[in-house]
């Protein structure tokens, strides 16, 4: 998982969806085929097994519950594609939330608060990115340190108190429209749009190709003339901006900035990325898989509750899924290498 170790194998990077093929064929051959089947299967089982799962309102709920972790997982995907990992993403978003909320509660302007939140999140992610790209330290350790430091700083900054935000720009993403009888908050549209933009950027732009190249084989990328340091740093900064959007969405979902909130969001986001078929070793996968991975986790939690199954079994099921996903990735990797 270290960024500096060159790996044997092809220089060719594998995006989630190969371009130029019919969508269904591309899907079958890509890393998202497995996760997609798992998601559909889970939905089918819960639809047949419970009376309440397939209602429009419940489906909307699953999306609402996926938005914040799903957004953090999007930033996480970009970093994991570079063969990195970000254990601090949840704590960065919580710090962003607390900064925004505290500023407004103390009488500040919501627009300035939102900008402040973005700046804080991007700076924090940039610190991780700088250390990783400049000093070649393992992202796992760097972001573990950042996680501890940021989580503690957030508690100090907030005196561990929760801040309740009055309705304003900060809670705007929580406003909703009705679609077929179901409540759909703006944040869901923002979330899906983010994935579309990220997918386009990864597959259709030079920056996206560079990111895959760096994650697949950093030495080869360097030799090919890619500015590896700048690519790595910019990935962390972009991820930081995405975390800030996650923080904004979180305030729309519940207008309370709780410094103890989202305490497992870092691991939850990694879970979503891995279940979505993105390789922890970098260079392989994509954001579409992460979207599906996030939904799988939410569907399991929601569906098993509908079916009145103890919540601990949800975690057992998700744990097994993670191991299966990593095993599949290893299998594919070995086949590619031979």
């Amino acid at each position: 998982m270290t960024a500096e170790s060159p790996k044997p194998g092809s220089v060719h990077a594998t995006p989630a969806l190969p371009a130029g093929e019919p969508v269904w064929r591309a899907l079958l051959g890509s890393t998202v085929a497995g996760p997609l089947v798992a998601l559909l299967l889970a939905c089918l089982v819960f639809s047949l097994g419970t009376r309440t799962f397939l209602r429009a309102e419940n489906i909307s709920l699953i999306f609402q519950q996926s938005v914040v972790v799903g957004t953090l997982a999007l930033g996480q995907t970009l970093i994991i594609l570079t063969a990195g990992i970000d254990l601090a993403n949840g704590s960065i978003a919580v710090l962003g939330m607390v900064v925004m909320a505290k500023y407004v509660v103390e009488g500040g302007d919501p627009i300035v608060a939102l900008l402040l939140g973005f700046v804080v999140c991007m700076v924090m992610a940039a610190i991780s990115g700088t250390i990783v790209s400049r000093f070649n330290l393992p992202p796992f350790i760097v972001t573990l340190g950042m996680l501890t430091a940021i989580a503690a700083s957030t508690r100090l900054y907030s005196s561990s108190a929760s801040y309740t935000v009055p309705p304003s720009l900060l809670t705007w993403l929580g406003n909703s429209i009705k679609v077929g009888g179901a409540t759909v908050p703006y944040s869901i549209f923002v979330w899906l749009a983010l994935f579309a933009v990220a997918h386009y950027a990864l597959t259709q732009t030079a920056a996206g190709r560079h990111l895959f190249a760096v994650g697949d084989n950093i030495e080869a990328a360097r030799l090919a003339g890619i500015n590896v340091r700048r690519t790595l740093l910019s990935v962390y900064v972009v991820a930081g901006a995405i975390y800030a959007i996650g923080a904004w969405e979180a305030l729309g979902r519940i207008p309370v900035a709780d410094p103890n909130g989202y305490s497992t969001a870092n691991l939850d986001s990694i879970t979503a990325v891995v279940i979505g078929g993105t390789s922890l070793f970098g260079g392989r996968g994509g954001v579409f898989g992460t979207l599906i991975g996030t939904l799988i986790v939410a569907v399991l939690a929601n569906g098993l509750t509908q079916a009145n199954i103890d919540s601990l079994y949800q975690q057992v099921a998700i744990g097994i899924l993670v191991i299966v996903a990593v095993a599949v990735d290893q299998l594919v990797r070995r086949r590619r290498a031979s």
Partner: protein
Amino acid sequence: MRIRSSYPALVAAVLVVASCSSSSSTPTTAAGASATSASAGGYTIGIVEQQLSNPFFANLEAAAKAEAQAHGLTVITAESKVAGDAATQVTAIQDMINRGVKGISLDPGNATAVVPAVQQATAAGILVVAVNTETSPSTAVAATYETDNLAGGKLMGQYAKAKIGSTTPVVALLDYDLTDKTSKARHDGFLAGFGITDSSPEIAAEIATQANADSGQTAMENMLSAHPDINVVYTINEPMAVGAAAAIKAANLSHPVIVVSIDGSCSGVQAVKNGQISATVMQFPSKMGKDAVDAIINYVSTGQKPSGIIDTGTTLITDQAITGVQSQDTTWGLQNCWGATS
């Protein structure tokens, strides 16, 4: 003990076993202690707390310090660095033994890990009392001043039972990990107060959450989706109750839902005042700190040791008082709560 998720610390502890165990304690003499230590008491006591970024612990320590200084004692304080950090506390206790304190008030970061240091102190003739959390075994210290969480839970259950009246109850339980002693005591207390058991049909759903607002909201949403007729919600702490209240509000139910919680933080009492929480049970960290110091002072002057587990009391806070269940309103609650309001 206040239920609070400590996941980042947990991750850190599990993943890098050795890296963050710097055991340099920083016992600092309380500000102004030299001035107040003049002559009346003339001796020194130690206060070992958990990390003060949590207002519960800060409130407890401030009360203990104030009580000691009011009696003219010199105070040495030390705090653990993160949740569960016993190493710093152990070093601090050993420092305090060397500095010849007469008594130590200890809030154990880890119930078992502090015991050897406590035994060293006791062997040196120092009275050690625990506050907020028992040591394991609890007899390692002379006495423990803490909230009786079973009694607190019962209060929540009794209130919910009286409030629901003759309506058929459909109960949802928002727990924290039930292997946690505090969590289990509150859970059992609620059930006993409500007059049901874990296997009663009145319980529609039960989820173990992370004890924070976002996990409480998600759990409540899923429960309501499956059981829209839920009308009684038990929550393990106030942030989770606020999360549950958001889910209940969004569900646009046609019937009222009773949400009961426990802690007594100022933001929690404010949530009761706002109508998000029906009633909360207040605990009193400042009383724990004050009583512990009084016990040490009493021991030094009379030689009498306190013993056993001493309940520092719980009070139900609600603006919808009901006959048969004693309570205080939120005006009283806001005067007696701990932590910052927001």
